[in-house]
């Protein structure tokens, strides 16, 4: 085993062991602080009876839909704003007013406009992803040395070709960083939305377990959340490494 893997595994094993020992000695009441082994057992039961997967799938679908829509819109509008000053001048004042509003702040308004249905969490995730990805895209494009564009133009490239072959590839590192950071935010928003208004999903399971004093289920949900955020981040890191490999070559 590599030393770097051991550096990760040893603290985690130590943490679990301390947790298990403290819980076994019942320093705190076991219904508030269950041992790790009971959490794993609950996870197994939740997997077998399908509750965990069902709720995870609901949340995952909402995150993916909302995040994809928000990211696509953010990237497309960001390209237009970053590349064309006139678009930037027209939209920037409006977006700079809307951007500071936290995604969950839109919830009451969306509940009235959209209703309490599947579209609500998707709309909230859209709002949480759209603005940061938009501004990351704009920054990525504006940071490009404009002389590269001049060179491409002098080499005979059309505006569309310049956008496709020069501007977008050079802005890609910024765009991917935005996607990576905001993918975690999408999970935070979905949990909050499901806790407030939606009866299915990991957030709903969390709030139900709280009312039934099922701390072990709450911890299972938190572990799943951590795993999901990590997986999303790793996925975008993988994309960054492979799509902008020229930066490290």
């Amino acid at each position: 085993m590599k030393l770097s893997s051991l550096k990760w595994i040893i603290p985690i094993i130590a943490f679990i062991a301390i947790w298990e020992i403290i819980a076994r000695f019942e320093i705190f009441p076991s219904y508030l602080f269950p041992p790790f082994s009971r959490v794993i057992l609950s996870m197994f039961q939740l997997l077998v009876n399908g509750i965990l997967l069902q709720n995870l799938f609901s949340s995952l679908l909402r995150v993916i839909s909302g995040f994809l829509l928000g990211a696509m819109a953010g990237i497309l509008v960001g390209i237009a704003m970053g590349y064309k000053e006139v678009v930037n001048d027209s939209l920037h004042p409006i977006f700079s007013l809307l951007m500071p509003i936290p995604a969950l702040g839109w919830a009451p308004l969306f509940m009235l406009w959209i209703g309490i249905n599947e579209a609500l969490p998707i709309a909230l995730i859209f709002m949480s992803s759209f603005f940061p990805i938009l501004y990351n895209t704009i920054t990525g494009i504006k940071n490009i040395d404009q002389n590269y564009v001049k060179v491409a133009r002098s080499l005979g490239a059309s505006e569309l070709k310049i956008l496709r072959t020069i501007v977008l590839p050079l802005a890609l590192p910024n765009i991917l960083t935005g996607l990576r950071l905001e993918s975690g935010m999408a999970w935070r928003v979905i949990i909050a939305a499901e806790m407030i208004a939606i009866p299915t999903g990991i957030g709903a399971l969390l709030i139900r377990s709280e009312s039934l004093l099922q701390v072990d289920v709450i911890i299972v949900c938190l572990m799943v959340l951590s795993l999901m955020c990590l997986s999303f981040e790793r996925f975008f890191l993988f994309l960054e490494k492979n799509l902008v490999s020229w930066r490290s070559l």
Partner: protein
Amino acid sequence: MKDIENYICKNINLEISDKDFFVLLGPTGSGKTTILNIIAGLADYEGNVMFDGKPVDSVPVKNRGIGYLFQNLLLFPHMNVFENVAYSLRTRYRPENEVEDIVNELLKSMNIFYLKERYPKNLSGGEQQRVAIARVLAYKPNILLLDEPFNNLDLRTRKHLRLEIKQLHKELGVTSVFVTHNLIEAEELGDEVAILNDGKVQQIASPKELFSSPVNDHVSEFIGTPNIIECDYCKILGNELAEIGFAGLSLVVPYEDRKVEKVAISPGDIFISKEEIPGPRLNVFKGKIDKIDNLGPILRIKIKVAKRTFVAEIPKDSSYKEELKVDDDVFLKIRLKSIKVF
């Protein structure tokens, strides 16, 4: 010619002959790059740019048939060498097998074929230079614009690349406009040189003419205020040497198979000493200091030798600076190799 509301260059009238290597020489901010951008169609201007007698003002950059080598080279960092060189061909939708043939051949001719898979980040300054040149040559431009391409290179690579560019120009016969602030580059490369100052053309001439007949103080200052000497006589000595006479003095100069009419000596190439200079007395004169001007890091000293005044420049940190004053008797030595003959 303008840039937004401020004119960078005014009343520029340049005529560049077909297949010429034309050099725009001038200090930083004199408008050299602006002129290249105007020729390329990358800057706003009033007036006309004509190629082969036809105005191209309404022709977009991509259709002007220009190869532009930018000052910082600007190789696309996300493309490898092959992709960089192929870029101009792919933008013209040339068939991929043709692109491959042209690029491979070009890379081989420039001795950089082995770099084709590498990314710009992993290339040395000289290698990047060659790739950038190959990139602009790939689609066979009608006019080559080169904006101080050797700026960030060491002296040895600069010299080597100067020779390569000259050779390439000879082989391809493409009309080239080369921007530099380096006198040696202008002298070595240019068929014709235009000296710019404050957005105006001061003089257009061959490099030799510039040295022998600077038309005004700007030109004279830029080329180093040389001491121009009109020869009274020229006597061939053999061994590629000649003796010239002027103002009752004689000077041994390099001889290049034709009568020497003028010589130019850069002020920095005149050595001054209050003590008699040891060694052979070739091109050593005795004179009197007439004037000392303080030019910041250097001292400009005018020395009267018989009826002639020489201008010499010495760095301020020179060890003998304290001792030199007006009316001092000094010895001058002019280095044979630094004398330019016309």
